[in-house]
């Protein structure tokens, strides 16, 4: 039996994984989310900004990373708009501007955008191709693409009149989806900004962003869905990340049990082979 389990594992593993994903949806439960110190630091800094402060948000999200980076974006948007901060959004992937609008829909549902006007309280600049070259150009001249995502000139948008370079904003928040892009944004933007936060990185690159946090180059870091859920815990505004943590809890327990099971199967199989 153990030899069979060692080789024919796929069906039972896949079925148990699917069950562990479905159960939290049918029987929801809530567990407190521990807040890492780097996420707390990011929250405290954004919370300390006076009303009317300007924040530039740079993002590289696309559809596949929406569950991770989108959750971080939504949690920070909810907080920033509830504090009446002004937000300028820039995307470095073709899909990012549409996903910004999707994140804003969450903010609308949470009531964070009530009474706010596009062009005065937030601007979606859209997508600029060119990776690090465009990031470097944007750092010095925010107006080098002088129209927003909807085609309106910056001259018509009151919020953009005082923002000519990233140094004119009170805070720069980046959400990144790859190692090279984390480096590129920190290289080009961080030295020129008044304050810098890594607002969201994928789980696989969370450890990669820690040296920057420890060196003081970023005020804080939000690591994937866990960071977003911790941020929502601090801000008190529930979002998609908090809902996902239930599923993450159960699937992580399943993976833990899977590791124990694979070792039991392996060692029992080894003993069986030794007896033979």
């Amino acid at each position, binding site marked *: 039996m153990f030899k069979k389990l060692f080789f024919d594992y796929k069906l039972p593993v896949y079925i148990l*994984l699917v069950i562990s994903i479905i159960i939290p949806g049918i029987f929801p439960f809530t567990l407190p989310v521990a807040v890492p110190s780097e996420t707390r630091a990011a929250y405290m800094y954004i919370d300390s900004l006076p009303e009317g402060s300007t924040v530039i948000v740079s993002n590289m999200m696309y559809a596949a990373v929406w569950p991770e980076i989108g959750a971080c974006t939504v949690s920070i948007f909810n907080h920033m708009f509830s504090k009446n901060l002004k937000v300028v959004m820039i995307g470095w992937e073709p899909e990012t501007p549409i996903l910004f609008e999707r994140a804003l829909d969450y903010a609308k549902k949470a009531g964070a955008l009530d009474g706010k006007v596009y062009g005065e309280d937030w601007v979606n600049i*859209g997508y*600029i*191709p060119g990776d690090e070259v465009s990031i470097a150009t944007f750092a010095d*001249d925010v107006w*080098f693409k002088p129209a927003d995502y909807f085609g309106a000139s910056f001259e018509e948008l009151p919020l953009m009149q005082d923002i000519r370079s990233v140094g004119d904003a009170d805070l720069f928040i980046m959400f990144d989806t790859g190692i090279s892009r984390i*480096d590129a944004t920190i290289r080009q933007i961080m030295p020129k900004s008044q304050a810098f936060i890594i607002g969201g990185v994928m789980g696989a690159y969370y*450890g990669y962003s820690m040296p920057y946090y420890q060196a003081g180059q970023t005020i804080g870091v939000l690591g994937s869905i866990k960071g977003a859920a911790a941020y929502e815990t601090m801000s008190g505004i529930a979002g998609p990340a908090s809902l996902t943590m239930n599923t993450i809890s159960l699937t992580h327990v399943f993976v833990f049990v899977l*590791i124990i099971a694979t070792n039991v199967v392996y060692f029992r199989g080894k003993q069986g082979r030794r007896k033979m």
Partner: protein
Amino acid sequence: MAFYKNRRVFITLTLLCTLIMILDFFFEALGPLADFLSTTSIFLGSFTLGIGMINLARLHYGHVNRRTEKQWTLSALFIVFYFGTFIVGLIPPIGSNEIFKWLYNNIYLHADVSMGAMIALLYAGAIYRTFQVKNRASFVFMIAFCLILLRNAPIGAAIWPGFTTVGDWIISVPTSAVFRGVIIGTAIGLVAFGIRVVLGKQPGYPARSMEEGE
């Protein structure tokens, strides 16, 4: 030999552009020229998007034309959705009209996220095959993996709050140390690569056909 096939011309151009950007960065000299180079490279990036679109369309049109077995119907479907989405995106405001956003949010996004979610099944299978304690190194790897797993899930802190502390230490100390080395090594490697390119010592830059003097 035509000038555009001459390897030395491209190396010299690369060196000139690099010098202009370095002078602008360190001494803030040649600002307008450096801005022009930056803006031009952004335009070139936009063109590569267009080239990618054309290549993709050519590839699938070729399959449809040749009636490639088990492929041409999928290619035909691809071309219909591809150009359909492109045409819808051209409706003003370009790329941000409501129909285009609806197609993206309700069809493409869910399809793409679902494809990514299927990786979870692959991961589960890989974990079952990989995390067998065959030696001391795999034992340490397994223990660290389990600690990080329980640190990331709220249920870990509910079982024992120490999982969060231990997991945070693993990320902050050994993991950060390794990634710090990776960051520094990558940066040094990038500088070395750049110096080789501008001096013309990097194999493969420019294209091999130029090096062979065709």
